[in-house]
């Protein structure tokens, strides 16, 4: 096989700071080369450097990139424009924002064709439709005149791929192409990419943080961290005998799929019970804004969570899983149905009666960046709930120094130092912030914590640590979790039982092992089969 792209000693820096540090690799024609790394490792910067599309302030410090023997860094800007889109094409992470909202998709695909192939008129139209059909857009002839916002996320990514492949490039750079997509869509897009590369002998530079995707797609793998290439190896070699410690850590960050947490024996009254709970939002129409119908975000779900138990609520985006969590917390009012806590009905209490339950039910949000007020110190953040909910020891009231002591104790428990108390959230990394969020939740001594995708914004290596912490706390404090997630791979590790949600309804519920190994509902089967799996390793 011939070498398609050769990257030699590439360094990219911003000011004095080095983002990409002297990396070299090559990609052969028709192969998928995966560049793996966590956020900030410099993998996206590498891809932009190859395309010479670095944003202002970043510059190439040294090195060279050759495309079939031709140095890209010596080309003029006009010559480079002849390479972009024609010989090297790119697909980005966010299909939502990567398409121009004011042009039809047909026009956007057509732009590449006119630019590099001088297509026009009927021929152009034919080409566009053929491309759209090739990437699996149904009813292509009509959709060509649609605007991006009329398409779903998966379809937009298909359009991006069609656009990238329009001029039959030799190399496709796919920068986290499926990260923003649901797992079933991800499966489809990966399949499409695989198909196309076989058909077209396409070299693909796949940039991703997801080891599952890597395992599924890549021929060769390179691991990047802090701007440096740690190791390069063919897939099988990489997964069976990773050389670098960090690679091993990445591979092991995916929890094993064969060890399940056993369901635990339950008392008669569960801690939380939801009976046929609905959350509907009114849709208004017409001159008088009458209620014309409802968006049924949560449509009659029933579930229970026992003492010390973790229930995973799984679903794709828009399935209503987060809404269900917020309904329990009464951040959103329920329309029908009942919520019971320790056998007591709580969905009809008014805010002053509910305040007592706020101590019992707490929440951890997905995004550690937006879940803490940037203007408050860690102390203030943790203290706020303790003060407003009057949390105290046995006598129910703590004085200032007792509270301070407790805050320090909790902070140490979640793995932070007491000296962090006077810092602001922005001084911490994502994983540390999520620890602060956990500290804030356990500070009021709850019985149930709603974990709304607490790990999906974190890098894989951090994810395991946070999940571990949650489990330890569960054992120490007898906590129950409602663990809302879209990530099926972590479920065996964390949940006793699983409920699968789709379109506001629970389609399947049962012990983790039963659901994961023997799914009954078609949708669950579909979900599970879409999860990219790492080959059996060590």
């Amino acid at each position, binding site marked *: 096989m011939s070498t398609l792209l050769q990257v030699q000693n590439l360094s990219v820096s911003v000011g004095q700071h080095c983002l990409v540090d002297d990396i070299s690799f090559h990609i052969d024609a028709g192969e998928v080369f995966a560049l793996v790394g966590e956020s900030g490792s410099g993998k996206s910067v590498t891809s932009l450097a190859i395309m010479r599309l670095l944003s202002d302030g970043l510059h190439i410090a040294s090195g060279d990139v050759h495309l079939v023997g031709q140095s890209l860094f010596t080309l003029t800007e006009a010559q480079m424009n002849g*390479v972009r889109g*024609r010989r090297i*094409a790119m697909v*980005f992470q*966010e299909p939502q*924002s990567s398409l*121009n*909202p004011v042009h039809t998709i047909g026009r956007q695909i057509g732009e590449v064709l006119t630019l590099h192939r001088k297509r026009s008129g009927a021929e152009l139209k034919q080409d566009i439709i053929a491309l759209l059909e090739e990437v699996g857009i149904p009813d292509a002839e009509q959709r060509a005149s649609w605007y991006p916002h009329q398409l779903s996320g998966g379809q937009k990514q298909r359009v991006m791929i069609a656009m990238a492949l329009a001029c039959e490039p030799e190399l496709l750079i796919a920068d986290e192409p499926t990260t923003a997509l649901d797992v079933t869509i991800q499966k489809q897009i990966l399949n499409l990419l695989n198909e196309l590369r076989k058909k077209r002998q396409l070299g693909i530079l796949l940039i991703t943080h997801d080891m599952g995707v890597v395992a599924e797609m890549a021929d060769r793998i390179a691991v990047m961290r802090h701007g440096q290439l740690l190791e390069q190896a063919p897939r099988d070699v990489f997964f069976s005998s990773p050389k670098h410690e960090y690679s091993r850590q990445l591979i092991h960050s995916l929890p094993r799929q064969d060890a399940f947490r056993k369901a635990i024996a339950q008392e008669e009254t569960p801690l939380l019970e939801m009976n046929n709970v609905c959350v509907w939002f009114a849709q208004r129409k017409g001159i008088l804004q009458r209620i014309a119908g409802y968006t049924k975000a949560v449509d009659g779900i029933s579930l229970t969570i026992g003492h010390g138990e973790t229930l995973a609520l799984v679903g794709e985006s828009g399935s209503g899983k987060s809404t269900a969590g917020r309904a329990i917390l009464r951040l959103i009012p329920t329309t029908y149905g009942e919520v019971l806590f320790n056998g007591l009905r709580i969905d009809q209490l008014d805010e002053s009666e509910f305040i007592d339950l706020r101590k019992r039910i707490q929440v951890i949000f997905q995004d550690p960046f937006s879940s803490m007020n940037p203007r408050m110190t860690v102390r203030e953040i943790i203290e706020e709930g303790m003060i407003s909910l009057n949390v105290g020891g046995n006598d129910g009231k703590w004085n200032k120094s007792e509270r301070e002591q407790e805050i320090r104790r909790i902070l140490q428990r979640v793995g932070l130092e007491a000296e962090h108390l006077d810092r602001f959230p922005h001084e911490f990394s994502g994983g540390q912030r999520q620890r602060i969020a956990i500290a804030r939740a356990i500070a009021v001594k709850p019985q149930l914590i709603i974990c709304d995708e607490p790990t999906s914004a974190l890098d894989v290596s951090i994810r395991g640590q946070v999940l571990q912490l949650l489990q330890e706390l569960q054992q120490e404090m007898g906590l129950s979790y409602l663990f809302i997630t879209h990530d099926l791979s972590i479920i065996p590790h964390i949940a006793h039982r699983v409920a699968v949600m789709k379109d506001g309804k629970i389609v399947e519920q049962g012990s983790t092992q039963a659901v994961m190994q023997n799914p009954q509902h078609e949708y669950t089967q579909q979900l599970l089969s879409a999860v990219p799996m790492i080959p059996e390793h060590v």
Partner: protein
Amino acid sequence: MLAYIIRRLGYAIPILLGVNLLTFALFFVVNTPDQMARVQLGDKHVSEEAIEQWKAQRGYDKPLMFNTEAGGLGLVTDTIFYEKSLSLFAFDFGKSDEGRNIGSDIQQRMWPSLMVALPTFIIGIAVNIAFSLFVVMFRASVFDTAAMVLCVVLMSISGVFYVIGGQFFFAKLWHLVPISGYLTGPDAIRFLILPVIIGVISGIGGGTRLYRTLFLEESGKDYVRTARAKGVPELTVLFRHILPNGLIPILTSVVVVIPSLFMGSLLVESFFGIPGLGSYTLDAIQAQDFAIVRSMVFLGSVLYILGLLLTDISYTLVDPRVRLS
């Protein structure tokens, strides 16, 4: 779409009613017709008869909101509120305090206003967009910095100085155009050039800066990177991708003032002696002719609300993502 427009027009009614009540309160309750008469008649020691006569001539001698003496409908119709304020809803502006018919004055004077305001508006936007695109083309360069400094300097000069300076240099010193005045027909152009130029120049600083920010914001978006990755040359990226997206907020933000162009500009019109609605209003203010001011306030509100409606409609025209609902 139609349902939406009807609903929006429905919203306009309470707003106009609010404007109406507010102006009524300002002009008749806070400031009673008696006081108006005293100020108009000029003398502090005017006789009661003179005041009564002045009020009667202008219909200000009726009760404010409820006429308890008149029977039936007269209870509400035979009042100042009904005759002077509510009548505005029918665009019946009545007579000015000096006895002129306001409605026909407005019809006559809105054209000169439009002759100045419309070209200023269109040329102004075109110039601002052109300048800002030019600056964006050279972003993060010395030229960009210099242009932005110039914009801040231009922004810091009061509009009055643009008018004074323009008149002084172009008309008085260099005799290029007449200082002020107005003629109908083709001759008008000679009188219009300077006000339009000054109107455009005085807006360049703020406009260019704002539009530059909007374009720069667009140029940082993902779809621009996609276009570059497609191999689209920089200039095409600017005109085909950034410009149409940047124009959306620009166009929709300026649409709101289009109806109000009829009202003209107080400053420009009075300085250049253009007999439009702007100078009409200014004269009314200086002569304390409340009937005219009241009418212009109402007219202005109607035009503003019309502008809001046009803004919403323009969104659906220029932005494919927006559908009225």
